[in-house]
């Protein structure tokens, strides 16, 4: 046996030996390779676009020649900046949308929080009737696009303001609904709140369920009164969940497009999101970029202020699995009234919109809700030039069926890529814990959270309208829809991935390594099977979000890559109410159907067998 040389000196940095050492090391630590690749990829798709639109916002564009014919195309300019903030047009372009967005955000967040909190309390902490059924129904809005309520609102209250048909109320009473009821601030806030309460409900009920046992112990030993216990113990423990519900709702409201577009634009009530859309349609991208940047700054400062007030560093916990129910207080004679209130609430937020849409989709002449006017034409008609510009019914409509295919494709592709990316990010972050790479990766995977959807869409137009190096211009392709959906959902899936990976003790992988099992086998035989249940849940959520998303992709869709949500919005813009109602119903049906199938299949696959030793 050769004697071991006792050289203690490290080889010089540039030496071949050091190079071989570093190369061996890297090969030895797959999490480093994955981490670096993920960091580069995410840096490219998250950070570069941001820098890109900052640059574009201050660059003189060809279309700016219309305003300043002697401008230097491609040179630095403050033109957009000046227009958005300091010109007479700024009032319409910036200040009004700012005030509208903030007022809308605050009001919706407040209502959603109160409603979500009350429901969570009822469901977790009391013995209200029909808990199981309610629990399943209350998350229903989560499966629907946020603007379904807005569509329903229109079928109910639409007036003659924008021409075309009128709503059910006008049909029944014969009087016109005033504008402030039919359109604008009030209906927007109401319909959004009736959707976004579901987020607050999910977050807070999860937290409440886990707070329970701690509360019980503390309460039993200290003899505190009920209200004092709630104030001193429960509320502080709930604060992180409440904080994240506030942040989540507010940022989503800032970035939401569908509802303000449907209920606001007809009366020229603009929010940031609709103003960005309008600016881009008017080919004033520069203005839109500046507005998108303002939106991002707003979101970031809101997160900052919120975490200051709530006093928790992590005021953005994401949804966790449901806990256990204990410590229910007896509602006594209020058991039935409480249940009836919840039933009414569910009728308004879930049943009524769907029924209204169904009815609407079955009317031959829009606005006529009599039984004699019912038809199945918009579902099964072959196409008739007298009706709806000759657009055939849903099941014969190639455009609709193609968009349906695209939506499902988008949902599956996003879920698959998100699952894979979440898994890899989780793997690299958890295995590399403590190193700088791990922290950076975690931070950048979370970054898309602070981009309101519409702003992220604007960023992506800026980035991918021309080719960057080897990457072709992605604008108008299906790839860009998948990419942006994956990126927008990444904060959530990477958290799922990290949580799943933390559950798998590292010795389970290490023991395989020592036994000579290579990385790919370890992933497919050990890591993936063990994190499957968490991953499937995360992927299902991505699927649902991708299918119902509009705000994120509205700026990026074109006839070539249209999905159902975009199609619905198009029908609505052309005042084809029955088509938009029918397609919306179909979308919701598919989302529910596929989630049920996935749930059943993952249960069948025996996920219950996996108890982590």
């Amino acid at each position: 046996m050769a004697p071991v040389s006792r050289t203690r000196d490290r080889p010089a940095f540039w030496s071949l030996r050091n190079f071989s050492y570093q190369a061996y090391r890297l090969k030895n630590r797959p999490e480093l390779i994955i981490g670096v690749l993920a960091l580069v990829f995410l840096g490219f798709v998250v950070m570069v676009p941001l820098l890109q639109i900052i640059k574009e916002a201050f660059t003189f564009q060809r279309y700016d020649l219309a305003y300043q014919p002697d401008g230097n195309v491609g040179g630095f300019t403050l033109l957009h900046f000046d227009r958005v903030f300091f010109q007479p047009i700024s009032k319409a372009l910036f200040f009004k949308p700012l005030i509208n967005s903030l007022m809308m955000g605050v009001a919706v967040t407040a209502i959603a929080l109160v409603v979500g909190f009350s429901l969570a309390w009822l469901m977790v902490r009391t013995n209200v009737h029909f808990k199981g059924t309610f629990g399943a129904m209350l998350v229903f809005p989560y499966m629907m696009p946020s603007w379904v309520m807005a569509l329903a609102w229109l079928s109910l209250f639409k007036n003659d303001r924008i021409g075309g048909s009128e709503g059910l109320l006008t049909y029944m009473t014969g009087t016109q609904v005033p504008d402030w009821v039919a359109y604008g601030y009030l209906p927007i806030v109401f319909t959004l709140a009736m959707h976004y309460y579901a987020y607050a409900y999910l977050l807070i009920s999860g937290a409440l369920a886990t707070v329970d046992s701690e509360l019980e112990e503390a309460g039993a030993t200290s003899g505190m009164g009920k209200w004092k216990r709630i104030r001193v113990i429960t509320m502080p423990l709930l604060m992180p969940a409440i904080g994240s519900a506030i942040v989540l709702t507010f940022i989503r409201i800032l970035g939401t497009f569908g509802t303000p577009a449907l209920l606001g634009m007809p009366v020229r009530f603009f929010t940031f999101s609709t103003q960005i859309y309008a600016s881009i349609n008017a080919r004033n991208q520069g203005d839109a970029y500046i507005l998108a940047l303002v939106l991002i700054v707003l979101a970031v400062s809101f997160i900052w202020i919120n975490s200051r007030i709530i006093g928790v560093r992590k005021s953005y916990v994401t949804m966790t699995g449901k806990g256990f129910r204990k410590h229910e207080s007896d509602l006594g004679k209020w058991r039935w009234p409480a249940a009836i209130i919840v039933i009414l609430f569910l009728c308004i937020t879930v049943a009524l919109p769907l029924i209204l849409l169904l009815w609407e989709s079955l009317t031959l002449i829009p606005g006529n809700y009599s039984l004699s006017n019912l038809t199945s034409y918009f579902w099964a008609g072959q196409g008739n030039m007298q009706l709806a510009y000759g657009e055939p019914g849903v099941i014969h409509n190639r455009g609709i069926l193609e968009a349906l295919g695209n939506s499902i494709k988008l949902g599956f592709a996003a879920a698959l890529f998100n699952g894979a990316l979440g898994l890899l990010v989780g793997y690299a972050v958890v295995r590399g814990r403590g190193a700088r790479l791990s922290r950076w990766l975690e931070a950048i995977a979370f970054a898309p959270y602070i981009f309101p959807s519409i702003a992220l869409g604007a960023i992506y137009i800026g980035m991918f309208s021309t080719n960057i190096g080897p990457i072709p211009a992605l604008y108008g392709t299906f790839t860009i829809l998948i990419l942006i959906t994956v990126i927008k959902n990444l904060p959530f899936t990477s958290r799922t991935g990290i949580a799943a990976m933390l559950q798998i003790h590292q010795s389970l992988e290490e023991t395989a390594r020592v036994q000579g099992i290579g990385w790919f086998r370890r992933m497919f035989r050990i890591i993936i099977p063990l994190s499957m249940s968490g991953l499937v849940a995360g992927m299902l959520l991505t699927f649902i979000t991708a299918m119902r998303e509009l705000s994120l992709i509205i700026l990026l869709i074109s006839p070539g890559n249209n999905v159902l949500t975009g199609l619905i919005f198009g029908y609505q813009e052309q005042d084809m109410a029955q088509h938009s109602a029918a397609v919306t119903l179909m979308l919701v049906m598919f989302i529910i159907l596929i989630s049920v199938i996935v749930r059943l299949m993952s249960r069948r696959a025996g996920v219950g067998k996996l108890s982590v030793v």
Partner: protein
Amino acid sequence: MGQIRLDGIVKSYGKEVVVKNLDLTVQPGEFLTILGPSGCGKTTTLRMIAGLEEPDEGNIQLGDRMVFSRSDGVVIPPEARGLGLIFQSYALWPHMTVARNITLALKEKKLSKTEIAARLENALDLVQLTGYAERYPSELSGGQQQRVAVARLIALRPSILLMDEPLSNLDAKLRTEMRASLKRLHRDLKATTVYVTHDQIEALTLSDRVIIMNEGKIMQEGTPFEIYHHPANIFVAEFIGDPGINLFHGVTKNSTLDCGDITVPLPENLASADRRLIAAIRPEKVLVSETEKPGWQKVSTEILQPTGADTILQVRIGETSITLLQPGFITLAEGSKLWINFAPDSISFFDPETQDNLRSTAD
């Protein structure tokens, strides 16, 4: 084949140096135990041998293959080191049956189906788990899970075995049983074994050789006998033995060490005036009498702890407390008088400055 050689290994986490310039050779077929208090770097050392951690400095050789060398730029990943490792947590894959747990690595090695089946059967047989092949780990007791982990190793037939506190999750009775079966396993496989523990009974009963580690450094290496009877320094003397060794600080006076309340006889080579020394004597080496004897020192009993076969006695003389260990189940009234004495050749002496042993006991 089978030799392990560590050479100048240094490992730190951030600023904290966890393993300090460690040299270690394990002979082929040897059973070596690394024993030390919690946090002394045992697991880290083992993981560096396995390749799961990278040293900052030094070389590691397995057999005649260099698997790590900072200076030569060699890092062989754990997958290619071909050794076996048992974790404290057993690390069984919870989603696989016992059979799949054992055969997964064999399939990776592309062994033939018949070979795999034969090895599986043989391994289950050796750990007495025949018939459990289709169970999931969660359907087994702790001891059975531990045996599956062992069977997984047996089936792979590595020439080097590493074990990190494999018995610490078991209850006392099962531990004694498993100790015997690990010893048998070592004998059957004839593999070079490095065993990490902080349980000195395991170390003393299982090993050919023991290494005592503290704060990332080797305090002593030797056979269990040497470690117990000839501790190289105060740390080892105090660490080994339960109940713990008695230490008396004193000053030499002619041929005795004056420790205040008691005096200890000195060997000739240490007899000098006014030197500070520490005397150490194991509880079972103290001579005890129930009747007065000339030259013996009178003590009073404070606490009695019969453990069944033996009795631990806590006695006091003046301010000094002394631990004794006597065979048998002793019942004595608290405060009863006893007389004790020290046989000169059962005492160790340590230098208070260097902490080193000045003269080993000859037993």
